[in-house]
């Protein structure tokens, strides 16, 4: 029983690491947004206020997937439902 519990926990840790990998893609997307916004700000400095607020909204919206990954990783590590199910039904 302990061996299978250890397997479940180690797989959960690997899953958490994989879930956190999407931070790389999220950062890439955010960098694209900010680069484009700075470019258009340099082209049209009089519209920079509108561009800045739109940039913040875009950055926040694309950050959502990264935050979801973080929440999934935290659930995997600290509140894993599989461990409870295993302890309840198997043992």
């Amino acid at each position, binding site marked *: 029983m302990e061996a299978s519990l250890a397997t479940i926990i180690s797989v959960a840790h690997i899953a958490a690491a994989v879930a956190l990998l999407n931070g790389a893609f999220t950062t890439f997307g955010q960098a694209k947004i900010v680069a484009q916004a700075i470019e258009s700000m340099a082209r049209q400095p009089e519209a920079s206020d509108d561009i800045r*607020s739109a940039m*913040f*909204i875009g950055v*926040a*919206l694309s*950050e*959502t997937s990264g*935050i*979801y990954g*973080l*929440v999934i990783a*935290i659930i995997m590590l*600290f509140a894993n439902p599989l461990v409870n199910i295993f302890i309840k039904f198997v043992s």
Partner: protein
Amino acid sequence: MLNVDNYWIIEIAGVEVWITETIFNTWVIMSILILIAVMIRIGLNSFKTIPTGFQNIIEAAVEMFDNFVNNTLGEKLSYIAPWFFMVFVFVFSSSLFSVFGLRAPTADFVTTFALALGGFLGMVFMGLRHRKGKFLKSLFEPNFVFFPINLIGELAKPVSLSFRLFGNVLSGTIILTLYYALTPIFFQIGIPALLHAFFDVIIGFLQTYIFVILSLMYIKEAAE
């Protein structure tokens, strides 16, 4: 760090009420904010037509937020501004609260979900009030087959809004707790100030701004 401490358990009419760290800290922040509000009210006993000194600062702050809401929502819908001023002040001061090494109430999913649910109910209310039937009809656009997808899209709004704020504040809390737990006491003297300044003040302000402006965008989308 992840577990919310439970201070007391009170029984009211046979129902257990758990007074957790989150509730306690929320009440501390609420009492501080109410105290500041009462002090400002006493200090500004008589409003002058031409403001001077302290009244200037208060009027500038309120006017700045009113202009922000006016620019986002337009004149007709901007009567919702006081609620969002409250949300802004509460979320930002709870981010600042963790500068003192205490747990911010927004690092608990319950608080952020309550705030986002308030914004969502405001969205539904304002949509029904200003667009009446058209708001309900927009759920069936472009075809009645799309009703489940539209409904899920609407219901995902408060969830994503609250998860964003919760994840950001919680990640800052986790990183700072790890730093305090792992480093020797020599490193805990000057360096955490920088970390607190970044994770609590800058990220806190940015996430508060984003929380408020996204709620305003949802309301604008529903009510116009």
